[in-house]
């Protein structure tokens, strides 16, 4: 077993174990942190495939942003284990059926003839001077430019929709306009009154 294979098995072991802990950990915060570890090791495995852009994008987007906001919410939960376990048995049949369906679907996909080692051989070593980032950029902006633009428009629409959904116009809020605050002159606020000093 060469060094690279050893590293791959190490990453895979960590990945599978931490993924298991995501669904078995009792504390939701621990589960979320194990999910962070899962993403991180997945990034490591992609790095082994010399897909450094995807690996780092995964860490940046999922670990650096999505999971931070996820933890943000999960940490504020009031964790009551008894309440969470309530109704476990009544939900079990539905959950089991869905789980079984997913296992069957995955078996069909993974066992199919298009997914075997013959259908998808390991990519050949691209050799020195190969830059995954450059290749990816070239493909995205030449061959796949229309699907790429379409995806970005869909994302933009989703983004604007999310903003529009949470936007509420309230009239009675006392919001200060920072620009107006900065532009304030002394004469707007202070009036100097000349008075005669009172003498007893």
């Amino acid at each position, binding site marked *: 077993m060469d060094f690279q294979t050893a590293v791959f098995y190490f990453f895979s072991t960590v990945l599978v174990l931490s993924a298991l802990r995501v669904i078995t950990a009792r504390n939701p915060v621990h589960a979320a942190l194990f999910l962070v570890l899962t993403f991180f090791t997945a990034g490591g495995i992609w790095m082994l495939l010399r897909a450094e852009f995807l690996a780092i994008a995964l860490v940046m987007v999922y670990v650096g942003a999505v999971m931070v906001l996820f933890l943000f919410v999960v*940490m504020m939960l009031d964790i009551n284990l008894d309440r969470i376990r309530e109704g476990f048995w009544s939900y079990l049949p539905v959950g089991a059926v869905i789980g079984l369906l997913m296992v069957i679907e995955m078996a069909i996909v993974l066992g199919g003839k298009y997914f075997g080692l013959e259908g998808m051989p390991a990519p050949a070593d691209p050799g020195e001077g190969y830059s995954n980032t450059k290749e990816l950029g070239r493909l995205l902006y030449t061959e796949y430019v229309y699907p790429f633009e379409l995806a970005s428009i869909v994302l933009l629409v989703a983004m604007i929709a999310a903003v529009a959904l949470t936007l509420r116009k309230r009239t009675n809020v006392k919001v200060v306009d920072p620009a107006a605050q900065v532009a304030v002159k002394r004469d707007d606020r202070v009036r100097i009154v000349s008075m005669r000093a009172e003498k007893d």
Partner: protein
Amino acid sequence: MEAIIEPVAALFGPVWPLVWSLLKIIGIIAPLFLCVAYLTLAERKVIGYMQVRIGPNRVGPRGLLQPIADGVKLLLKEIIVPSGANKGLFIIGPVLALAPALAAWAVVPFSDGWVVGNVDAGLLFLLAVTSIEVYGVIIAAWASNSKYAFLGGMRAAAQMVSYEIAMGFALVCVLMISSSLNLTEIVAGQGRGQWAEWGFGFLSWNWLPLFPMFIVYLISGIAETNRAPFDVVEGESEIVAGHMVEYSGMAFALFFLGEYANMILISALTSILFLGGWLSPVGFLPDSFLWLVVKTSFILFLFLWFRATFPRFRYDHIMRLGWKVFIPLTLFWVVVVAIWVMSPLSIWK
């Protein structure tokens, strides 16, 4: 140099690359910790003089041994774990706060060829590493089981996620004009151009054509390291010390080390990305590692200067600056720079 290294390399045989990398890592980390120690002294001295005080002057000549005394004191103190705390995460928190600040130095070049890992995607690596810095703070905040710590953690999460976006866009501008993600290439690119040929190297650095991005990066850097005036995360007047409330001894010191190591990292990165790294500002002086030291020290001085000058931002103003000012500005500037690079007026061809 080669004559000394070869016999040692032969001694270690096949594990030599590993040993050599370890030695290089120690060669960076050990001076870094010394810099962190003396940055704390510099901060107290600089702010002291700005407030017409002397600052620490009792331990050693002119107070020069103060950081050593502080370090020894923190090492000898007991680490108290609160009874309601989540013990494992309580210990991991400070470690995670320090580790990314050290890991990022792997791709930072100190001079032409002086870098541990001269990787092609260096800038991407930096973005990824700085984005996981926030975990130390939020894990520590939650594990402490304290209201103040928790509030600090929530603030940290929101603030760091907001300013990372502006920082990322500023970096996109830099990589567009240098058309490389490798930090050594980015520095080399700043030494080319008309101004550099005329001997005014400092005018060909990225800060001039990307001036708004330079300012945005510098301010976002201060916000990312949670330094004053963006230090609402530990805002003493409101939430005591934020995520560090329950920490004592060395666990607290790790947060401290992390914060200062991050400051040095951001300053070094600002110097490399916008101020030409180790390039000499004028034609008649040679390029040298010392220029990077001078530039980094100057940015660090700015950090201390800002802390002594500005009052703490209100929380909603921080969010407004991040989302409503920096992000639209950087988005617009990305488009401007993209058009500039592709137009006949481009100065980076």
